């Protein structure tokens, strides 16, 4: 494997793939915090030159975290189709980039070669792609999934209604759901982050949302984003869950910090397939986000983009209905400003899609980041151009429980109108029946939460 390069009279010698991968990244505060970042702008580009010349076989043969030491690595390795890999193993990373961007390469071709790619190869090509590259390549990929309803079709933009409440007050959660529905948001999922992580409380929220869906005939799915073990207990006690939720990390150690393992996820998978209330076949909702491994001190010196790709490698095993990167939630020590958040959002969406995952993004920021609502509006437009499956919607973007800002119901409605996107088909028909939408546009009745009283 070639690890040396001379550029403009200066020679750069990298120690190995781990260093090349880390230094090739766009500037991120998380890589700086880990102390693995490029020392200057030219070293970054030097690393990118070296990386672009490596073959896919170089990447597979030099594991950043050997499968013997980490179960996420094992899951990724087991997922590789050897015949397809053999047909592309001598491609350089640069050739992979140019292949993905070539006009003859469509969703079909990409669906074929993805089976020969590992998460590390996908991370590698992402590092040498510009923002517009990431948008164009991702926009070719369609990933449709079905729980109770189908999302991810071309020309469709779904939204998660995120009606959180600071003390899980059921009426309060309902009030925010009504507001979301009245703006046409909630087709991806009605998903609540609970404050109280107990089976009883989770069950109460699951059953309330399910009853609401039945009462109004809403074609969507429900989910309460508690720890997976709490949801399992709630389901065993009669909780009606369409989707199981869990946050994922890209290393075994990171998942341990989240209190999960492949074994536990397998067990949960069996349970939801048997006792979940949805038609399926896709019954998982995963969340990820660059930096979570480092924050759990479980990063093994690997850069945060590569670790994020590995989350997707793990997610693939469970054929999820939706995967959401909560891109700006983790804080400025991982993504410092809007430039870094926008880049990470586009990277994550592209990497997930190239993995074949139904990617959505929580376009968001915390109050101690150098970002504001305008930055989120910008990123949202870019992501819809990239073909994002769904976005997170919160009343006026302000999550009064998690204390951060995302996109508003208004924003999702605006993005649909502006970029000619429709809600998920079954949900759109329901909106028409309710008189909230007509020919893809909100009616004068939209925005009135008392429609559901």
């Amino acid at each position: 494997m070639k690890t040396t390069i001379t550029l403009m009279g200066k020679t750069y010698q990298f120690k190995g793939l781990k260093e090349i991968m880390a230094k090739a990244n766009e500037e991120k505060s998380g890589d700086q915090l880990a102390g693995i970042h490029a020392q200057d702008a030219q070293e970054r580009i030097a690393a990118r030159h070296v990386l672009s010349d490596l073959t896919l076989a170089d990447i597979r043969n030099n594991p950043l975290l050997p499968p013997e030491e980490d179960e996420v690595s094992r899951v990724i390795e087991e997922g590789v189709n050897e015949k397809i890999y053999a047909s592309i193993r001598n491609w350089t990373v640069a050739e992979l980039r140019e292949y993905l961007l070539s006009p003859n390469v469509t969703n079909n071709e990409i669906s074929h070669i993805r089976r020969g790619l590992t998460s590390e190869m996908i991370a590698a090509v992402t590092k040498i792609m510009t923002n517009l590259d990431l948008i164009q390549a991702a926009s070719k990929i369609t990933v449709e999934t079905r729980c109770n309803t189908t999302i991810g079709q071309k020309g469709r933009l779904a939204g998660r209604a995120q009606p959180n409440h600071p003390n899980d007050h059921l009426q309060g959660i309902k009030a925010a759901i009504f507001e979301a529905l009245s703006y046409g948001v909630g087709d991806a999922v009605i998903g609540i982050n609970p404050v109280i992580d107990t089976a009883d409380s989770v069950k109460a929220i699951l059953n309330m949302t399910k009853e609401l869906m039945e009462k109004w005939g809403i074609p969507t799915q429900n989910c309460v984003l508690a720890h997976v073990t709490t949801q399992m207990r709630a389901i065993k006690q009669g909780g009606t869950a369409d989707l199981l939720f869990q946050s994922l990390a890209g290393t075994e150690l990171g998942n341990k910090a989240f209190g999960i393992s492949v074994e536990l996820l397998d067990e949960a998978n069996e349970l939801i397939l048997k006792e979940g209330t949805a038609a399926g076949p896709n019954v998982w909702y995963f969340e990820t986000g660059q930096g979570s491994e480092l924050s759990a001190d479980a990063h093994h010196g690997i850069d945060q983009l590569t670790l994020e790709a590995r989350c997707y490698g793990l997610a693939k095993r469970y054929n999820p209905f939706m995967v959401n990167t909560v891109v700006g939630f983790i804080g400025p020590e991982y993504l410092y400003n809007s430039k870094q958040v926008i880049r990470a959002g586009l990277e994550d969406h592209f990497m997930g899609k190239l993995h074949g995952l139904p990617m959505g993004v929580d376009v968001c920021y915390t109050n101690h980041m150098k970002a504001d609502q305008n930055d989120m509006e910008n990123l949202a437009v870019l992501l819809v151009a990239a073909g994002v499956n769904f976005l997170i919607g919160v009343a006026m973007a302000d999550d009064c429980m998690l204390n951060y800002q995302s996109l508003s119901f208004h924003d999702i409605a605006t993005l649909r109108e502006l970029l000619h996107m429709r809600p998920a088909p079954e949900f759109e028909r329901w909106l028409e029946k309710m008189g909230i939408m007509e020919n893809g546009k909100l009616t004068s009745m939209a925005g009135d939460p008392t429609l559901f009283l």
Partner: protein
Amino acid sequence: MNQVDIQRIVEKVMVELETRVSRQLKENIDEKECEKKFHYTTFDWLTSVPNPKFPEGIDELRKVTPARIGVWRTGTRPLTKTILKLQLDHAAAVDAVSGEVLDSLLEEFGLFTVETCYENKEVYLKRPDKGRVLTEEAVKTIQEKCVKKPQVQIVVSDGLSASAIEANLRDIYPALLDSLKVNGLTQGTPFFVKGGRVACMDHIGEILQPEVLVLLIGERPGLVSANSMSAYMCYRPRKGTVESDRTVVSNIHSGGTPPVEAGAYIGTVLRKMIEQKASGVRLEL
């Protein structure tokens, strides 16, 4: 001048007067209008659905959640006041992060100031590890000025919200001192840490070896309140203390746990820590 002319002049003067008076009246009204506009209250930001299906329903729904609902729209965009309120709340949060606690406030409570290795606000945000370690100078100052091995060590820090200290210290601090007295506890020499993170408790624990330490620190500001403070407490904090060893009272501000109440409660928690020789998940409250 004939009668008609006089009549005309009188009419003209009357019209002129009327215009002046009405203009003056109008100006008075405008002034009042302006005054009102410069004293925004919650009511002034309130927008609402113009013709809701159930008119009484909007208030009913709003009562049960602090979420910004029932706000209405122009086309698909929010109304101007809704946007301005969101921007104002975000501005308060941003200013809380970048702000500094006034020296005069710290002097009121006799708190001297030391710094962590945070260097500046940007490094502070990017490198939480630096906010956990005090500078060499700080260590020296603390060793010179503070009582060693106190029963209770009180530390105040700006953390992620200087305005949390500004807003709450005057209420929480005296209440905390009272509650120490009520619980029969004695305190060492309190001080202020600039650029602190929660785990700076551990470094201070190494230097002063208190039996228990309470750190009053500004929380990451939210839009509901930019002034929220937390009280982190630990029994014998030392290097390597894990998060689950800390006990925390969070959400301390006028709209959450009132600071006076929090201060009064902290003394009881500290006493139980000393009695049980434990804190965090092992402490029974």
